[in-house]
């Protein structure tokens, strides 16, 4: 087991290193000049602009040699300083991101967990009879083939506009400001529902199909046949098959995280939902170096943490990894 976690840490460490480097590297090559951009909003005269330009370049330390900027970046990272956003000046990047994180968690955590649990149950259920299988399977394939943003658009149009049941923009109504009250909370949930639903449905389809295939495989395994030969009721055989089929589905979840993050991103765009994905896009469009870096970093950290959480759960539920008999075969 130590080997198992040792390998995991190595991979996560390297991934983090690589990701931070990419994170630092790429925005450097974005077209345009963020400082000039920011200053252009301030409508200053030429001299003042020049002075401020030099000041900010120095303040943002963009005049240092490249390798020093890289090291400074790591240094700042460990101090929790991700710079100041030029798009939302003068708010520090970390503050901007932390404002957005709760919305992402509120959206992603339930969507991922519920779709995984429900999708797996449903897929196992579908494998019971032929006619159930024939109806669930096409539905699953359609859902998993649906692009996240199109489902978002459809839901927004049908449920939001045509039927007028839900709002289709923002995290809460414009006339409210965040405060703790039933009115605000219910308003937030009301705005949350459509983006949640579109994330949930697409993933649900994927898990249902995956589980249906896995459980058929497990039902044909030797241990299932032996139980049947011993006259075990169908219920027990199915129970065992389901539990065993969940294991690869769990590792599958870890692999899907990148795709799910992408889905959340576009869904936020469709619904103008103020999560990190939405923020990332705005930052790119406004050429805000630091905010782009910060968003990317948060996404990476989030994915790594989620991966790690899944690894821990996996060790808890699969006795084979605990007994150290399986080396981690990627």
């Amino acid at each position, binding site marked *: 087991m130590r080997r198992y976690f040792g390998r995991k840490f190595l991979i996560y460490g390297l991934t983090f290193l690589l990701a931070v480097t990419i994170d630092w590297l790429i925005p450097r090559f974005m077209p345009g000049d963020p400082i000039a951009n920011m200053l252009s909003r301030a409508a200053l005269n030429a001299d003042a602009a020049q002075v401020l330009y030099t000041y900010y370049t120095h303040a943002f330390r963009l005049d240092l040699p490249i390798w020093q900027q890289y090291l400074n970046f790591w240094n700042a990272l460990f101090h929790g300083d991700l710079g100041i956003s030029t798009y939302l000046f003068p708010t520090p990047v970390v503050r901007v991101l932390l404002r957005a994180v709760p919305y992402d968690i509120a959206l992603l955590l339930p969507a991922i967990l519920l779709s995984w649990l429900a999708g797996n149950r449903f897929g196992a259920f579908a494998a019971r009879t032929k006619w159930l299988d024939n109806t669930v399977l096409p539905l699953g394939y359609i859902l998993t083939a649906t692009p996240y943003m199109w489902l978002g658009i459809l839901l927004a149009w049908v449920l939001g506009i045509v039927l007028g049941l839900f709002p289709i923009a923002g995290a809460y109504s414009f006339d409210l400001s965040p405060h703790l009250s039933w009115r605000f909370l219910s308003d937030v949930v009301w705005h949350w529902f459509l983006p949640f639903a579109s994330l949930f449905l697409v993933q649900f389809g994927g898990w249902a199909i995956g589980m249906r295939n896995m459980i058929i495989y497990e039902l044909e395994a030797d241990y299932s046949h*032996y139980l049947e030969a011993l006259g075990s009721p169908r219920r027990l055989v199915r129970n065992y098959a389901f539990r065993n089929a969940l294991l690869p589905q769990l590792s599958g979840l870890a692999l899907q995280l990148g795709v799910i993050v992408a889905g959340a991103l576009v869904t936020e765009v469709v619904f103008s939902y103020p999560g990190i994905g939405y923020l990332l896009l705005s930052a790119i469009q406004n050429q805000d170096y630091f905010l782009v870096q910060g968003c990317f970093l948060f996404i990476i950290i989030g994915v790594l943490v989620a991966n790690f959480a899944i690894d821990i759960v996996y060790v808890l539920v699969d006795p084979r990894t605990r007994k150290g008999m399986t080396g981690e075969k990627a």
Partner: protein
Amino acid sequence: MSLQVENLRVYYQTLRGDVKALDGATFTIEDREIMGLAGESGCGKTTLGHSLIRLTAPLRYVEGRVILDGAELPIADMARMDEFRMKRISIIPQYAMNALNPTRKIGTMTQELIRSRRMEAETSPEELRRRLDLVRLPHDVLNMYPIELSGGMKQRMVMVLSTLLNPSLLIADEITSALDVATQKAVAEMLVEFRDRGIVKSMIVITHDVSILYQVADSILVMYAGQLAEKASTETIIRSPRHPYTKMLVSSLPTVGVRYAEHKLAGIPGTTPLLLDPPQGCRFRDRCPVAFRKCVEVPPFLELAKGHWVACWKEFGSHA
């Protein structure tokens, strides 16, 4: 216990048609009899074993009856067979090493199986432990996962599990094939002990290794290409077989102490026929040294002498 099989036909469904894997088996097994079921790969012995207890796709029941202890076994009905499984008839499968759920502790799985079958009254934790002692497994295995056990230990665990409810008939399907010779002897002896202690009444021991049968079986049933060739006591089969196939099978066994410097080990020339479209009549006739024109008809499985059954026209002449 008594087992009567009457004209059992079970075919394999494939996309190219039915493979006639078991084509008309009729025989009986007496109480306390350990019957060996021998033959080449593909002769139908495993099909026969499985048909008795788990007849499901791709196996297809065609016709025949199986009567165990006076009651007809509904072998074609998977659901109704549950009543008999493990209690009256049980199996130690060929895949015993993979037969245990890898993610469940063995003791937990056993408990869940017993409980789900509502068999708590039929057995007890003490009895389970006694059985473990019998096969020389430590009680600790109940707390382990299958992955922590060696192949031999898993096999013995399966032996315990399959016989836990004292079935009348136990089918042991190639249980020694994956073991070394010393363990083979130990396992074979355990089987006999199960019968001697009354844990099981009778047994069908399926194997292609005739020498094992010589050690443990009271009688041997030889099969060829889905049909029965000969059934007799072990002594008779080994010392004085009558069916040409049995004769060649037995004589192709190497004898201890004999050197083969002078001549090669005799095998049986030719290959078994494909059972998708088997030849008419006796399926051995293409390889049989004494085949004659009557062999294009299927020879009936008849009693030549007391307890000695043969399916060969040569033995009964052209009149049967």
